[in-house]
């Protein structure tokens, strides 16, 4: 057991890690779970798990990779729990989605921007689960296919195939937007 001082110091140090990784983690979790509240919970679960298992971390992999694996597991757990509850998924359109106040872009430009984002999110949402997972980790998480392979347990070649298929589908679905943006 840690002494009180050590524990407090460990928590403070861990808070810096949280600050550094929470935004990226939240993006991944949101794309994974498609629900901001669920994503929030999954991120918290992941950080708490990471803290309580810090002694199992080996620095042969970057912390990000180790942590993202925990995050993915937390998302999977949430997803399973959600499926068990058979709760209806919250569509992205239902999320709080107001553009930031004071943005300098014109109303038309903002409207196009919003529509574009909705189109992207809808297209991503239509991807099969594995493709979406790989896409989120590679693309939003900024991880290489090799890292994603370590995070998910998939073979690297499988990750590449999923990523390629996802990108191919997205390009087909969003091709019409190229000239509008």
């Amino acid at each position: 057991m840690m002494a009180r001082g050590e524990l407090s110091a460990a928590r403070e140090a861990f808070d810096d890690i949280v600050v550094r990784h929470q935004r990226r983690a939240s993006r991944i979790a949101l794309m994974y779970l498609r629900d901001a509240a669920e994503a929030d919970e999954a991120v918290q679960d992941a950080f708490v798990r990471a803290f309580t298992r810090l002694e199992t971390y080996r620095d042969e992999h970057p912390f990000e990779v180790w942590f993202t694996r925990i995050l993915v597991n937390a998302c999977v757990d949430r997803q399973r729990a959600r499926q068990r509850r058979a709760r209806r998924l919250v569509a992205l359109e239902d999320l709080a989605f107001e553009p930031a106040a004071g943005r300098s872009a014109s109303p038309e430009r903002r409207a196009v921007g919003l529509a574009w984002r909705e189109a992207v999110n809808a297209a991503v949402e239509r991807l099969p689960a594995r493709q979406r997972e790989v896409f989120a980790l590679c693309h939003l998480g900024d991880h290489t296919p090799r890292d994603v392979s370590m995070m998910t347990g998939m073979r690297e070649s499988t990750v590449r195939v999923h990523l390629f298929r996802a990108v191919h589908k997205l390009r087909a679905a969003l091709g019409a937007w190229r000239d509008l943006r």
Partner: protein
Amino acid sequence: MIFAEWHPDDERLLGHYADRTADQTLDQHLAWCRPCHRRLSAMTRDLEGWHLAAAEHADEAFDHQRLAAQRRGIQQRLGAAVPGRVLPFPVPGSPERHAPLARVAAAVLLVALAGAGVFRVLQMPERVSSPAASRGAPSRTTAAVRLVREGADAADLEDIDLALLRPRTAVAELRALDEFTPHVRDIVAPRR
């Protein structure tokens, strides 16, 4: 020219983008093949656009306030997740050591005060009874006897009812019960 007939497919270009590592063969090809370079640029533009759209969306859902709340939630859960609270070991002569004694003394005083209050309340009922009590109403004992007797009468009546309901009640039993019952003839006869 070397590689003149070869052009990378989209998968190779995507791998190049995703791996973020140098691919010497591909880099050499892209350096002179304008169409492939344009293909990679178009793919990169799409990918960056999606990244931006998804990131903006996520960042709006997770604004600074939400992230701060998330951090607070994590800290709270970390506090709860670590088992066991570490209690300070008492140091002889430290002020903390006297704190329990003060608490015990206060508790004893409270119990004494509460006891005195209860004693006084127990003495009160005789003085604060109802007006009927002061007008010579039956005592507590008399009332109890009355209640017991009423209960006994009710029990006798119940016994009779049961005897009547019983299928094999003998006439003799009923007669015995009848002996205890006042009869109309005993009241009417003296008037004649």
